[in-house]
Protein backbone atom coordinates (compact mmCIF):
# COMPACT_ATOMS: atom_id res chain seq x y z
CA UNK A 1 0.00 0.00 0.00
CA UNK A 2 2.80 2.38 0.98
CA UNK A 3 4.57 1.40 -2.21
CA UNK A 4 1.56 2.57 -4.14
CA UNK A 5 1.52 5.96 -2.50
CA UNK A 6 5.27 6.41 -2.98
CA UNK A 7 5.17 5.45 -6.63
CA UNK A 8 4.77 9.00 -7.99
CA UNK A 9 7.78 10.16 -5.96
CA UNK A 10 9.90 7.42 -7.49
CA UNK A 11 8.64 7.73 -11.03
CA UNK A 12 10.91 8.39 -14.02
CA UNK A 13 9.31 11.82 -14.44
CA UNK A 14 12.35 14.14 -14.29
CA UNK A 15 12.53 15.66 -10.84
CA UNK A 16 13.08 19.17 -12.14
CA UNK A 17 9.73 18.89 -13.84
CA UNK A 18 7.89 17.31 -10.95
CA UNK A 19 4.85 19.31 -9.99
CA UNK A 20 5.75 19.97 -6.38
CA UNK A 21 2.18 20.53 -5.33
CA UNK A 22 1.32 16.83 -5.52
CA UNK A 23 3.83 16.07 -2.78
CA UNK A 24 1.60 18.00 -0.41
CA UNK A 25 -1.42 16.03 -1.53
CA UNK A 26 0.35 12.73 -0.88
CA UNK A 27 1.08 13.91 2.65
CA UNK A 28 -2.62 14.50 3.18
CA UNK A 29 -3.26 10.75 3.28
CA UNK A 30 -4.74 9.51 6.48
CA UNK A 31 -2.45 6.54 6.44
CA UNK A 32 -4.51 4.56 8.92
CA UNK A 33 -7.57 4.52 6.73
CA UNK A 34 -6.65 2.86 3.43
CA UNK A 35 -9.74 1.70 1.65
CA UNK A 36 -9.78 -1.83 0.33
CA UNK A 37 -11.31 -2.87 -2.96
CA UNK A 38 -11.66 -6.64 -3.19
CA UNK A 39 -11.26 -8.74 -6.30
CA UNK A 40 -14.97 -9.48 -6.22
CA UNK A 41 -15.66 -5.71 -6.11
CA UNK A 42 -13.61 -5.38 -9.30
CA UNK A 43 -15.48 -8.22 -10.95
CA UNK A 44 -18.81 -6.72 -9.92
CA UNK A 45 -17.88 -3.28 -11.30
CA UNK A 46 -16.64 -4.81 -14.55
CA UNK A 47 -19.95 -6.62 -14.88
CA UNK A 48 -21.96 -3.45 -14.26
CA UNK A 49 -19.85 -1.64 -16.85
CA UNK A 50 -20.14 -4.58 -19.28
CA UNK A 51 -16.36 -4.64 -19.66
CA UNK A 52 -14.74 -8.02 -20.08
CA UNK A 53 -11.72 -8.51 -17.82
CA UNK A 54 -9.31 -11.41 -18.28
CA UNK A 55 -8.58 -13.27 -15.04
CA UNK A 56 -5.00 -11.98 -14.95
CA UNK A 57 -6.18 -8.37 -15.34
CA UNK A 58 -8.31 -8.35 -12.21
CA UNK A 59 -5.48 -7.88 -9.72
CA UNK A 60 -3.87 -5.08 -11.79
CA UNK A 61 -7.24 -3.31 -11.97
CA UNK A 62 -7.61 -3.83 -8.24
CA UNK A 63 -4.28 -2.23 -7.33
CA UNK A 64 -4.76 0.63 -9.79
CA UNK A 65 -8.21 1.47 -8.54
CA UNK A 66 -7.12 1.20 -4.90
CA UNK A 67 -4.30 3.65 -5.60
CA UNK A 68 -6.66 6.09 -7.28
CA UNK A 69 -9.32 5.80 -4.60
CA UNK A 70 -6.82 6.25 -1.79
CA UNK A 71 -5.84 9.50 -3.48
CA UNK A 72 -9.49 10.51 -3.98
CA UNK A 73 -10.28 9.70 -0.36
CA UNK A 74 -8.82 13.00 0.82
CA UNK A 75 -12.27 14.38 -0.01
CA UNK A 76 -13.63 12.56 3.03
CA UNK A 77 -11.92 15.19 5.21
CA UNK A 78 -14.07 18.07 3.96
CA UNK A 79 -17.12 19.26 5.82
CA UNK A 80 -20.09 19.02 3.44
CA UNK A 81 -23.07 18.84 5.77
CA UNK A 82 -25.59 21.54 5.02
CA UNK A 83 -24.71 21.82 1.33
CA UNK A 84 -27.76 21.39 -0.86
CA UNK A 85 -27.46 19.93 -4.30
CA UNK A 86 -28.85 21.99 -7.14
CA UNK A 87 -28.18 21.31 -10.79
CA UNK A 88 -24.48 21.33 -11.51
CA UNK A 89 -24.23 24.38 -13.75
CA UNK A 90 -27.31 26.40 -12.74
CA UNK A 91 -28.83 25.82 -16.16
CA UNK A 92 -32.38 26.85 -16.88
CA UNK A 93 -33.83 24.15 -19.10
CA UNK A 94 -35.73 25.42 -22.10
CA UNK A 95 -38.65 23.31 -23.24
CA UNK A 96 -39.65 22.94 -26.86
CA UNK A 97 -43.13 22.30 -28.28
CA UNK A 98 -44.07 18.62 -28.43
CA UNK A 99 -44.15 18.52 -32.22
CA UNK A 100 -42.60 15.96 -34.55
CA UNK A 101 -39.72 17.47 -36.50
CA UNK A 102 -37.83 15.87 -39.41
CA UNK A 103 -34.75 14.15 -38.02
CA UNK A 104 -33.14 11.32 -39.95
CA UNK A 105 -33.88 8.30 -42.12
CA UNK A 106 -33.74 4.56 -41.45
CA UNK A 107 -31.10 4.27 -44.18
CA UNK A 108 -28.85 6.87 -42.53
CA UNK A 109 -29.22 5.28 -39.12
CA UNK A 110 -28.49 1.75 -40.36
CA UNK A 111 -25.48 2.91 -42.40
CA UNK A 112 -23.26 2.49 -39.33
CA UNK A 113 -24.89 -0.74 -38.11
CA UNK A 114 -22.45 -3.61 -37.55
CA UNK A 115 -25.18 -5.98 -38.71
CA UNK A 116 -28.62 -5.19 -40.08
CA UNK A 117 -31.47 -7.08 -41.72
CA UNK A 118 -35.01 -6.11 -42.69
CA UNK A 119 -34.38 -2.49 -41.73
CA UNK A 120 -33.46 -3.54 -38.19
CA UNK A 121 -30.29 -4.08 -36.13
CA UNK A 122 -29.37 -7.76 -35.81
CA UNK A 123 -28.31 -8.98 -32.38
CA UNK A 124 -27.84 -12.36 -30.63
CA UNK A 125 -31.02 -13.85 -29.31
CA UNK A 126 -32.02 -12.04 -26.12
CA UNK A 127 -35.21 -13.75 -25.02
CA UNK A 128 -35.02 -17.45 -24.32
Amino acid at each position, binding site marked *: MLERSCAPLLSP*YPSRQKPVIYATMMLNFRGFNFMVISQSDIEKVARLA*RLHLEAQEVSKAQS*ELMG*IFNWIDQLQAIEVSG*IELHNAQDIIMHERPDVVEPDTTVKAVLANAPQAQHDMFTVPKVVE
Partner: protein
Amino acid sequence: MDLTQLTLTEAREALLTKKCSAAELTQAFIGQMEKNRALNAYITQTPDQALEQAKAADKRLAHGNAGLMEGLPIGMKDLFCSKGIRTTSGSRMLENFVPSYESTVSHNLLSQGAVVLGKTNMDEFAMGSANITSAYGPSISPWKRTDNPAKQIVPGGSSGGSSAAVAARMCLAATGSDTGGSIRQPASFCGLVGIKPTYGLCSRWGMVAFASSLDQAGPLTHTVADSALMLQAMAGYDAKDATCANVPIPDYLKDLNAGAVKGMRIGIALEYIDRLNDEMKALFNQGVEWLRSAGATIHEVSLSTTPYALPTYYIIAPAEASSNLARYDGVRYGHRTDRGGSIDALYEHSRREGFGEEVRRRIMIGTYVLSAGYYDAYYTRAQKVRRLIKADFNRAFEEVDLILTPTTPAEAFALDERPTDPIEMYLNDIFTVTVNLAGLPAISVPAGLSGRGLPLGLQLIGPKFSEQTLFNAAKALEDSANFREKVPNHDA
Protein backbone atom coordinates in the same frame (compact mmCIF):
# COMPACT_ATOMS: atom_id res chain seq x y z
CA MET B 1 5.12 35.16 -48.79
CA ASP B 2 4.90 31.86 -46.91
CA LEU B 3 1.16 31.76 -46.43
CA THR B 4 1.40 29.24 -43.60
CA GLN B 5 3.23 31.82 -41.46
CA LEU B 6 0.11 34.01 -41.30
CA THR B 7 -2.15 34.12 -38.28
CA LEU B 8 -5.89 33.56 -38.71
CA THR B 9 -6.70 37.28 -38.66
CA GLU B 10 -3.77 38.12 -40.95
CA ALA B 11 -4.95 35.48 -43.44
CA ARG B 12 -8.48 36.87 -43.27
CA GLU B 13 -7.08 40.33 -44.07
CA ALA B 14 -5.04 38.88 -46.93
CA LEU B 15 -8.12 37.23 -48.43
CA LEU B 16 -10.32 40.30 -48.04
CA THR B 17 -7.65 42.51 -49.66
CA LYS B 18 -7.09 39.91 -52.39
CA LYS B 19 -3.41 39.37 -51.56
CA CYS B 20 -4.03 35.65 -51.97
CA SER B 21 -6.92 33.30 -52.70
CA ALA B 22 -8.53 30.73 -50.41
CA ALA B 23 -7.39 28.03 -52.85
CA GLU B 24 -3.75 29.18 -52.59
CA LEU B 25 -3.99 29.35 -48.81
CA THR B 26 -5.53 25.88 -48.60
CA GLN B 27 -2.94 24.43 -50.97
CA ALA B 28 -0.13 25.88 -48.82
CA PHE B 29 -1.49 24.14 -45.73
CA ILE B 30 -2.04 20.86 -47.59
CA GLY B 31 1.65 21.01 -48.51
CA GLN B 32 2.60 21.63 -44.89
CA MET B 33 0.43 18.69 -43.80
CA GLU B 34 2.31 16.45 -46.25
CA LYS B 35 5.70 17.55 -44.93
CA ASN B 36 4.71 16.95 -41.31
CA ARG B 37 2.95 13.59 -41.43
CA ALA B 38 5.38 12.28 -38.84
CA LEU B 39 3.78 14.50 -36.20
CA ASN B 40 0.59 12.43 -36.59
CA ALA B 41 -1.58 15.49 -35.93
CA TYR B 42 -4.43 14.36 -38.20
CA ILE B 43 -6.45 11.14 -37.99
CA THR B 44 -8.37 11.85 -41.20
CA GLN B 45 -7.20 14.35 -43.80
CA THR B 46 -9.70 15.86 -46.22
CA PRO B 47 -7.61 17.82 -48.76
CA ASP B 48 -9.96 17.31 -51.72
CA GLN B 49 -13.00 18.46 -49.82
CA ALA B 50 -10.99 21.37 -48.43
CA LEU B 51 -10.05 22.54 -51.92
CA GLU B 52 -13.73 22.35 -52.94
CA GLN B 53 -14.67 24.43 -49.91
CA ALA B 54 -11.87 26.90 -50.74
CA LYS B 55 -13.17 27.28 -54.31
CA ALA B 56 -16.65 28.06 -53.02
CA ALA B 57 -15.16 30.49 -50.50
CA ASP B 58 -13.25 32.30 -53.28
CA LYS B 59 -16.56 32.80 -55.12
CA ARG B 60 -18.20 34.27 -52.03
CA LEU B 61 -15.17 36.50 -51.40
CA ALA B 62 -15.38 37.76 -54.99
CA HIS B 63 -19.07 38.60 -54.48
CA GLY B 64 -18.36 40.44 -51.28
CA ASN B 65 -20.40 38.19 -48.99
CA ALA B 66 -17.67 36.69 -46.87
CA GLY B 67 -18.51 34.99 -43.59
CA LEU B 68 -16.42 35.44 -40.44
CA MET B 69 -14.16 32.49 -41.30
CA GLU B 70 -14.42 32.69 -45.08
CA GLY B 71 -11.76 30.67 -46.85
CA LEU B 72 -9.72 30.08 -43.69
CA PRO B 73 -8.27 26.53 -43.40
CA ILE B 74 -8.70 24.99 -39.97
CA GLY B 75 -8.40 21.62 -38.24
CA MET B 76 -11.35 20.01 -36.50
CA LYS B 77 -10.86 17.88 -33.40
CA ASP B 78 -12.07 14.38 -34.20
CA LEU B 79 -14.91 14.44 -31.68
CA PHE B 80 -16.98 16.95 -33.65
CA CYS B 81 -19.30 14.86 -35.83
CA SER B 82 -18.59 15.68 -39.46
CA LYS B 83 -21.34 14.68 -41.88
CA GLY B 84 -20.10 12.02 -44.27
CA ILE B 85 -16.58 12.10 -42.83
CA ARG B 86 -15.37 9.46 -40.40
CA THR B 87 -15.37 10.65 -36.78
CA THR B 88 -13.42 8.45 -34.39
CA SER B 89 -12.99 10.41 -31.14
CA GLY B 90 -9.49 8.87 -31.12
CA SER B 91 -10.93 5.42 -30.48
CA ARG B 92 -11.07 2.01 -32.18
CA MET B 93 -14.66 1.92 -30.97
CA LEU B 94 -15.59 4.47 -33.65
CA GLU B 95 -12.97 3.52 -36.24
CA ASN B 96 -15.53 3.26 -39.03
CA PHE B 97 -18.22 5.55 -37.70
CA VAL B 98 -19.46 8.00 -40.32
CA PRO B 99 -21.94 10.52 -38.89
CA SER B 100 -25.00 11.41 -40.94
CA TYR B 101 -25.09 14.88 -39.39
CA GLU B 102 -22.79 17.79 -38.61
CA SER B 103 -22.13 18.99 -35.07
CA THR B 104 -23.51 22.44 -34.34
CA VAL B 105 -20.07 23.97 -33.69
CA SER B 106 -18.56 22.63 -36.93
CA HIS B 107 -21.74 23.62 -38.77
CA ASN B 108 -21.37 27.15 -37.40
CA LEU B 109 -17.79 27.33 -38.66
CA LEU B 110 -18.68 25.88 -42.08
CA SER B 111 -21.60 28.26 -42.52
CA GLN B 112 -19.21 31.14 -41.78
CA GLY B 113 -17.08 29.88 -44.67
CA ALA B 114 -14.37 27.89 -42.92
CA VAL B 115 -12.31 25.35 -44.89
CA VAL B 116 -11.78 22.10 -42.95
CA LEU B 117 -8.45 20.39 -43.69
CA GLY B 118 -9.13 17.29 -41.62
CA LYS B 119 -9.97 15.72 -38.27
CA THR B 120 -7.25 16.15 -35.71
CA ASN B 121 -5.80 13.51 -33.40
CA MET B 122 -6.86 13.39 -29.76
CA ASP B 123 -6.69 11.30 -26.61
CA GLU B 124 -9.29 8.55 -26.79
CA PHE B 125 -12.74 9.92 -25.91
CA ALA B 126 -10.93 13.07 -24.72
CA MET B 127 -9.47 11.24 -21.74
CA GLY B 128 -5.84 12.23 -21.38
CA SER B 129 -3.34 15.05 -21.07
CA ALA B 130 -0.69 14.20 -23.63
CA ASN B 131 -2.41 12.73 -26.71
CA ILE B 132 -0.89 9.34 -25.95
CA THR B 133 -4.08 7.39 -25.32
CA SER B 134 -5.21 7.82 -28.93
CA ALA B 135 -5.85 4.53 -30.73
CA TYR B 136 -4.24 6.15 -33.79
CA GLY B 137 -0.86 6.72 -32.21
CA PRO B 138 0.51 9.69 -30.28
CA SER B 139 0.65 13.13 -31.76
CA ILE B 140 4.04 14.87 -31.48
CA SER B 141 4.69 18.54 -30.81
CA PRO B 142 6.81 20.40 -33.39
CA TRP B 143 8.66 22.03 -30.46
CA LYS B 144 12.11 20.73 -29.61
CA ARG B 145 14.05 20.91 -26.36
CA THR B 146 17.29 22.86 -26.67
CA ASP B 147 19.19 20.36 -24.50
CA ASN B 148 18.08 17.32 -26.49
CA PRO B 149 16.41 18.11 -29.82
CA ALA B 150 16.05 14.41 -30.67
CA LYS B 151 13.44 13.91 -27.93
CA GLN B 152 9.81 13.72 -29.04
CA ILE B 153 7.78 16.20 -26.99
CA VAL B 154 4.08 15.69 -26.23
CA PRO B 155 1.69 18.36 -27.54
CA GLY B 156 -0.58 18.05 -24.49
CA GLY B 157 -4.07 16.61 -24.48
CA SER B 158 -6.70 15.76 -25.11
CA SER B 159 -6.69 18.28 -28.02
CA GLY B 160 -3.08 17.32 -28.84
CA GLY B 161 -3.59 16.83 -32.56
CA SER B 162 -5.15 20.28 -32.79
CA SER B 163 -2.34 21.96 -30.84
CA ALA B 164 0.37 20.13 -32.83
CA ALA B 165 -1.35 20.99 -36.12
CA VAL B 166 -1.62 24.71 -35.34
CA ALA B 167 1.90 24.95 -33.85
CA ALA B 168 3.39 23.15 -36.87
CA ARG B 169 1.42 25.45 -39.19
CA MET B 170 -0.61 22.60 -40.67
CA CYS B 171 -3.71 24.78 -40.28
CA LEU B 172 -4.38 28.40 -39.24
CA ALA B 173 -6.32 27.33 -36.17
CA ALA B 174 -8.17 24.32 -34.86
CA THR B 175 -11.14 23.42 -32.70
CA GLY B 176 -10.65 21.66 -29.40
CA SER B 177 -12.76 20.58 -26.47
CA ASP B 178 -12.06 21.13 -22.79
CA THR B 179 -13.42 18.97 -19.98
CA GLY B 180 -10.59 19.34 -17.43
CA GLY B 181 -8.10 21.46 -19.37
CA SER B 182 -7.96 19.81 -22.77
CA ILE B 183 -7.79 23.07 -24.73
CA ARG B 184 -5.76 25.18 -22.32
CA GLN B 185 -3.07 22.65 -21.41
CA PRO B 186 -2.19 21.72 -25.03
CA ALA B 187 -2.27 25.43 -25.88
CA SER B 188 0.22 26.06 -23.07
CA PHE B 189 2.46 23.15 -24.13
CA CYS B 190 2.52 24.30 -27.77
CA GLY B 191 2.78 28.07 -27.36
CA LEU B 192 -0.77 28.82 -28.47
CA VAL B 193 -3.79 30.71 -27.21
CA GLY B 194 -6.59 28.42 -26.01
CA ILE B 195 -9.89 29.45 -24.48
CA LYS B 196 -12.50 27.34 -22.76
CA PRO B 197 -15.63 29.50 -22.82
CA THR B 198 -18.35 29.62 -20.17
CA TYR B 199 -20.27 26.36 -19.89
CA GLY B 200 -23.18 26.67 -22.30
CA LEU B 201 -21.67 29.31 -24.62
CA CYS B 202 -21.02 26.75 -27.36
CA SER B 203 -23.44 23.97 -28.23
CA ARG B 204 -22.43 20.41 -27.39
CA TRP B 205 -24.81 18.92 -29.96
CA GLY B 206 -22.88 16.56 -32.22
CA MET B 207 -19.82 16.46 -29.96
CA VAL B 208 -18.89 12.95 -28.87
CA ALA B 209 -19.69 13.26 -25.19
CA PHE B 210 -17.23 12.67 -22.37
CA ALA B 211 -18.61 14.45 -19.29
CA SER B 212 -21.76 16.37 -20.01
CA SER B 213 -21.57 18.91 -17.17
CA LEU B 214 -17.92 19.73 -17.97
CA ASP B 215 -17.37 19.50 -21.77
CA GLN B 216 -17.02 22.72 -23.77
CA ALA B 217 -15.78 23.48 -27.29
CA GLY B 218 -13.25 26.22 -27.99
CA PRO B 219 -10.56 27.36 -30.45
CA LEU B 220 -6.76 26.88 -30.43
CA THR B 221 -5.02 29.72 -32.24
CA HIS B 222 -1.73 31.61 -32.56
CA THR B 223 -3.02 34.91 -31.16
CA VAL B 224 -5.71 36.38 -28.92
CA ALA B 225 -7.28 38.22 -31.88
CA ASP B 226 -7.54 34.90 -33.75
CA SER B 227 -9.19 33.33 -30.73
CA ALA B 228 -11.72 36.17 -30.49
CA LEU B 229 -12.68 35.77 -34.16
CA MET B 230 -12.98 32.00 -34.07
CA LEU B 231 -14.90 31.81 -30.80
CA GLN B 232 -17.45 34.25 -32.15
CA ALA B 233 -17.97 31.96 -35.15
CA MET B 234 -18.25 28.83 -33.00
CA ALA B 235 -20.48 30.06 -30.19
CA GLY B 236 -24.21 30.66 -30.11
CA TYR B 237 -27.53 29.39 -28.80
CA ASP B 238 -28.70 26.02 -30.08
CA ALA B 239 -32.12 24.67 -29.19
CA LYS B 240 -30.80 21.14 -29.74
CA ASP B 241 -28.55 21.46 -26.67
CA ALA B 242 -30.68 21.93 -23.58
CA THR B 243 -27.65 23.18 -21.63
CA CYS B 244 -26.80 25.87 -24.19
CA ALA B 245 -27.14 29.43 -22.89
CA ASN B 246 -29.46 31.77 -24.73
CA VAL B 247 -27.15 34.78 -24.67
CA PRO B 248 -26.09 37.05 -27.53
CA ILE B 249 -22.51 36.51 -28.74
CA PRO B 250 -20.57 39.79 -28.77
CA ASP B 251 -18.25 40.81 -31.62
CA TYR B 252 -15.23 39.83 -29.55
CA LEU B 253 -12.68 40.92 -32.14
CA LYS B 254 -14.19 44.32 -32.84
CA ASP B 255 -14.30 45.09 -29.12
CA LEU B 256 -10.85 43.65 -28.38
CA ASN B 257 -8.99 46.25 -26.35
CA ALA B 258 -5.85 45.59 -24.30
CA GLY B 259 -6.26 49.07 -22.81
CA ALA B 260 -9.31 47.86 -20.91
CA VAL B 261 -6.87 46.26 -18.47
CA LYS B 262 -6.32 49.72 -16.94
CA GLY B 263 -8.12 49.67 -13.62
CA MET B 264 -8.92 45.93 -13.78
CA ARG B 265 -8.58 44.10 -10.49
CA ILE B 266 -6.54 40.94 -11.02
CA GLY B 267 -6.64 38.26 -8.32
CA ILE B 268 -3.81 35.91 -7.48
CA ALA B 269 -4.67 32.84 -5.45
CA LEU B 270 -1.91 31.73 -3.09
CA GLU B 271 -3.13 28.13 -3.19
CA TYR B 272 -2.26 28.02 -6.91
CA ILE B 273 1.20 29.51 -6.70
CA ASP B 274 2.83 28.74 -3.37
CA ARG B 275 4.31 25.45 -4.53
CA LEU B 276 5.42 26.31 -8.06
CA ASN B 277 8.90 25.42 -9.27
CA ASP B 278 11.30 28.35 -9.70
CA GLU B 279 10.80 28.64 -13.44
CA MET B 280 7.00 28.83 -13.24
CA LYS B 281 7.17 31.17 -10.26
CA ALA B 282 9.40 33.55 -12.21
CA LEU B 283 7.06 33.48 -15.21
CA PHE B 284 4.02 33.99 -13.01
CA ASN B 285 5.59 36.98 -11.27
CA GLN B 286 6.51 38.35 -14.69
CA GLY B 287 2.85 38.04 -15.72
CA VAL B 288 1.77 39.91 -12.60
CA GLU B 289 4.23 42.73 -13.44
CA TRP B 290 3.02 42.95 -17.04
CA LEU B 291 -0.56 43.42 -15.89
CA ARG B 292 0.46 45.89 -13.21
CA SER B 293 2.42 47.94 -15.77
CA ALA B 294 -0.63 47.90 -18.01
CA GLY B 295 -2.61 49.58 -15.23
CA ALA B 296 -4.25 46.68 -13.40
CA THR B 297 -4.27 46.36 -9.62
CA ILE B 298 -3.22 43.08 -8.05
CA HIS B 299 -5.11 41.52 -5.12
CA GLU B 300 -4.65 38.33 -3.17
CA VAL B 301 -7.65 36.04 -3.14
CA SER B 302 -8.18 32.75 -1.39
CA LEU B 303 -9.47 29.65 -3.17
CA SER B 304 -9.14 27.26 -0.26
CA THR B 305 -10.91 24.36 -2.01
CA THR B 306 -8.21 24.26 -4.70
CA PRO B 307 -6.43 21.11 -3.38
CA TYR B 308 -9.70 19.19 -3.60
CA ALA B 309 -10.51 20.06 -7.19
CA LEU B 310 -8.58 17.23 -8.82
CA PRO B 311 -10.03 14.39 -6.73
CA THR B 312 -13.50 15.95 -7.19
CA TYR B 313 -12.96 16.03 -10.93
CA TYR B 314 -11.73 12.42 -10.93
CA ILE B 315 -15.00 11.34 -9.36
CA ILE B 316 -17.42 13.45 -11.40
CA ALA B 317 -15.81 13.16 -14.84
CA PRO B 318 -15.42 9.37 -14.83
CA ALA B 319 -18.94 9.01 -13.39
CA GLU B 320 -20.41 11.04 -16.23
CA ALA B 321 -18.17 9.27 -18.73
CA SER B 322 -19.30 5.84 -17.55
CA SER B 323 -22.84 6.95 -18.29
CA ASN B 324 -22.06 8.59 -21.64
CA LEU B 325 -19.99 5.65 -22.86
CA ALA B 326 -22.67 3.12 -21.99
CA ARG B 327 -24.14 3.75 -25.45
CA TYR B 328 -21.17 1.94 -27.06
CA ASP B 329 -22.64 -1.54 -26.91
CA GLY B 330 -21.73 -2.93 -30.31
CA VAL B 331 -25.39 -2.97 -31.35
CA ARG B 332 -26.25 0.10 -33.38
CA TYR B 333 -22.88 1.61 -34.38
CA GLY B 334 -19.25 1.35 -33.47
CA HIS B 335 -17.13 -1.72 -32.98
CA ARG B 336 -18.84 -5.10 -32.59
CA THR B 337 -16.85 -8.13 -31.50
CA ASP B 338 -16.44 -11.14 -33.76
CA ARG B 339 -16.68 -13.42 -30.78
CA GLY B 340 -20.03 -15.13 -30.60
CA GLY B 341 -22.16 -15.64 -27.54
CA SER B 342 -24.96 -14.05 -25.59
CA ILE B 343 -25.99 -10.42 -25.72
CA ASP B 344 -23.93 -9.78 -22.59
CA ALA B 345 -20.90 -11.36 -24.23
CA LEU B 346 -21.52 -9.06 -27.20
CA TYR B 347 -21.50 -6.01 -24.93
CA GLU B 348 -18.53 -7.12 -22.82
CA HIS B 349 -16.22 -8.10 -25.65
CA SER B 350 -17.17 -5.26 -27.99
CA ARG B 351 -16.39 -2.78 -25.24
CA ARG B 352 -13.20 -4.56 -24.17
CA GLU B 353 -11.93 -4.57 -27.74
CA GLY B 354 -13.13 -1.10 -28.70
CA PHE B 355 -11.93 0.87 -25.67
CA GLY B 356 -8.30 1.51 -24.70
CA GLU B 357 -6.79 1.15 -21.24
CA GLU B 358 -7.33 4.69 -19.93
CA VAL B 359 -10.95 4.73 -21.08
CA ARG B 360 -11.63 1.35 -19.44
CA ARG B 361 -9.95 2.59 -16.25
CA ARG B 362 -12.16 5.70 -16.10
CA ILE B 363 -15.31 3.72 -16.86
CA MET B 364 -14.42 1.42 -13.95
CA ILE B 365 -13.84 4.39 -11.61
CA GLY B 366 -17.09 5.99 -12.71
CA THR B 367 -19.12 2.81 -12.37
CA TYR B 368 -17.68 2.24 -8.90
CA VAL B 369 -18.49 5.72 -7.58
CA LEU B 370 -22.05 5.48 -8.88
CA SER B 371 -22.71 2.00 -7.60
CA ALA B 372 -24.98 1.16 -4.70
CA GLY B 373 -23.27 1.66 -1.35
CA TYR B 374 -20.70 4.12 -2.73
CA TYR B 375 -22.89 6.71 -4.45
CA ASP B 376 -23.22 8.98 -1.39
CA ALA B 377 -19.65 8.56 -0.17
CA TYR B 378 -18.21 9.52 -3.53
CA TYR B 379 -20.52 11.00 -6.14
CA THR B 380 -22.85 13.00 -3.88
CA ARG B 381 -19.90 14.18 -1.79
CA ALA B 382 -17.97 15.24 -4.91
CA GLN B 383 -20.98 17.22 -6.18
CA LYS B 384 -21.17 18.98 -2.83
CA VAL B 385 -17.46 19.83 -2.90
CA ARG B 386 -18.09 21.13 -6.40
CA ARG B 387 -20.58 23.62 -4.93
CA LEU B 388 -17.87 24.72 -2.49
CA ILE B 389 -15.45 25.26 -5.38
CA LYS B 390 -18.04 27.37 -7.22
CA ALA B 391 -18.73 29.35 -4.06
CA ASP B 392 -14.99 30.04 -3.67
CA PHE B 393 -14.87 31.57 -7.15
CA ASN B 394 -18.10 33.54 -6.62
CA ARG B 395 -16.60 35.05 -3.48
CA ALA B 396 -13.31 35.84 -5.25
CA PHE B 397 -15.11 37.54 -8.14
CA GLU B 398 -16.83 39.90 -5.73
CA GLU B 399 -13.38 41.38 -5.09
CA VAL B 400 -11.60 40.97 -8.44
CA ASP B 401 -12.45 40.99 -12.13
CA LEU B 402 -10.17 38.14 -13.25
CA ILE B 403 -7.81 35.65 -11.63
CA LEU B 404 -4.29 34.98 -12.96
CA THR B 405 -2.73 31.51 -12.57
CA PRO B 406 -0.18 29.38 -14.39
CA THR B 407 -1.80 27.05 -16.93
CA THR B 408 0.36 24.00 -16.20
CA PRO B 409 2.85 23.15 -13.43
CA ALA B 410 5.71 22.79 -15.92
CA GLU B 411 6.74 22.59 -19.59
CA ALA B 412 5.69 19.73 -21.87
CA PHE B 413 7.41 16.45 -21.10
CA ALA B 414 9.04 14.07 -23.55
CA LEU B 415 7.11 11.09 -24.83
CA ASP B 416 9.62 8.68 -23.31
CA GLU B 417 9.59 10.53 -19.97
CA ARG B 418 5.85 10.42 -19.53
CA PRO B 419 4.38 9.60 -16.13
CA THR B 420 3.50 5.92 -15.81
CA ASP B 421 1.36 6.47 -12.74
CA PRO B 422 -2.15 7.58 -13.75
CA ILE B 423 -2.36 10.01 -10.84
CA GLU B 424 0.85 11.75 -11.88
CA MET B 425 -0.62 12.22 -15.35
CA TYR B 426 -3.80 13.61 -13.80
CA LEU B 427 -1.73 16.22 -11.91
CA ASN B 428 -1.05 17.99 -15.23
CA ASP B 429 -4.58 19.38 -14.95
CA ILE B 430 -4.17 20.81 -11.47
CA PHE B 431 -4.65 24.46 -12.52
CA THR B 432 -7.29 23.81 -15.14
CA VAL B 433 -9.94 21.48 -13.68
CA THR B 434 -11.34 23.97 -11.14
CA VAL B 435 -12.61 26.06 -14.03
CA ASN B 436 -14.58 23.22 -15.63
CA LEU B 437 -16.11 22.26 -12.29
CA ALA B 438 -17.26 25.84 -11.78
CA GLY B 439 -18.43 26.28 -15.40
CA LEU B 440 -16.34 29.44 -15.80
CA PRO B 441 -14.43 30.71 -18.83
CA ALA B 442 -10.63 30.68 -18.87
CA ILE B 443 -7.93 31.46 -21.41
CA SER B 444 -4.30 30.35 -21.68
CA VAL B 445 -1.81 32.75 -23.25
CA PRO B 446 1.76 31.76 -24.20
CA ALA B 447 3.97 33.84 -21.94
CA GLY B 448 7.53 32.63 -22.30
CA LEU B 449 9.94 29.78 -22.87
CA SER B 450 11.33 27.40 -20.29
CA GLY B 451 15.05 26.95 -19.70
CA ARG B 452 14.91 24.14 -22.23
CA GLY B 453 13.19 26.23 -24.89
CA LEU B 454 9.63 24.93 -24.49
CA PRO B 455 6.52 27.13 -24.22
CA LEU B 456 4.97 28.08 -20.89
CA GLY B 457 1.51 29.57 -20.53
CA LEU B 458 -0.39 31.77 -18.11
CA GLN B 459 -4.10 31.38 -17.48
CA LEU B 460 -6.75 33.99 -16.80
CA ILE B 461 -10.07 32.91 -15.25
CA GLY B 462 -13.19 35.04 -15.33
CA PRO B 463 -16.76 34.97 -14.07
CA LYS B 464 -19.51 33.58 -16.31
CA PHE B 465 -19.79 35.18 -19.76
CA SER B 466 -16.73 37.40 -19.21
CA GLU B 467 -15.02 36.26 -22.44
CA GLN B 468 -14.56 39.85 -23.67
CA THR B 469 -12.79 40.82 -20.42
CA LEU B 470 -10.64 37.71 -20.71
CA PHE B 471 -9.70 38.51 -24.31
CA ASN B 472 -8.80 42.10 -23.36
CA ALA B 473 -6.56 41.10 -20.46
CA ALA B 474 -5.08 38.25 -22.51
CA LYS B 475 -4.22 40.77 -25.24
CA ALA B 476 -2.37 42.89 -22.67
CA LEU B 477 -0.36 39.82 -21.60
CA GLU B 478 0.29 38.87 -25.21
CA ASP B 479 1.51 42.38 -26.07
CA SER B 480 3.92 42.33 -23.13
CA ALA B 481 5.14 38.77 -23.64
CA ASN B 482 5.90 39.24 -27.34
CA PHE B 483 5.90 35.45 -27.61
CA ARG B 484 5.59 35.30 -31.41
CA GLU B 485 9.17 36.63 -31.69
CA LYS B 486 10.40 33.62 -29.72
CA VAL B 487 8.77 30.94 -31.89
CA PRO B 488 11.51 29.17 -33.84
CA ASN B 489 11.10 27.91 -37.38
CA HIS B 490 10.00 24.35 -36.66
CA ASP B 491 10.76 23.30 -40.22
CA ALA B 492 14.44 24.07 -39.80
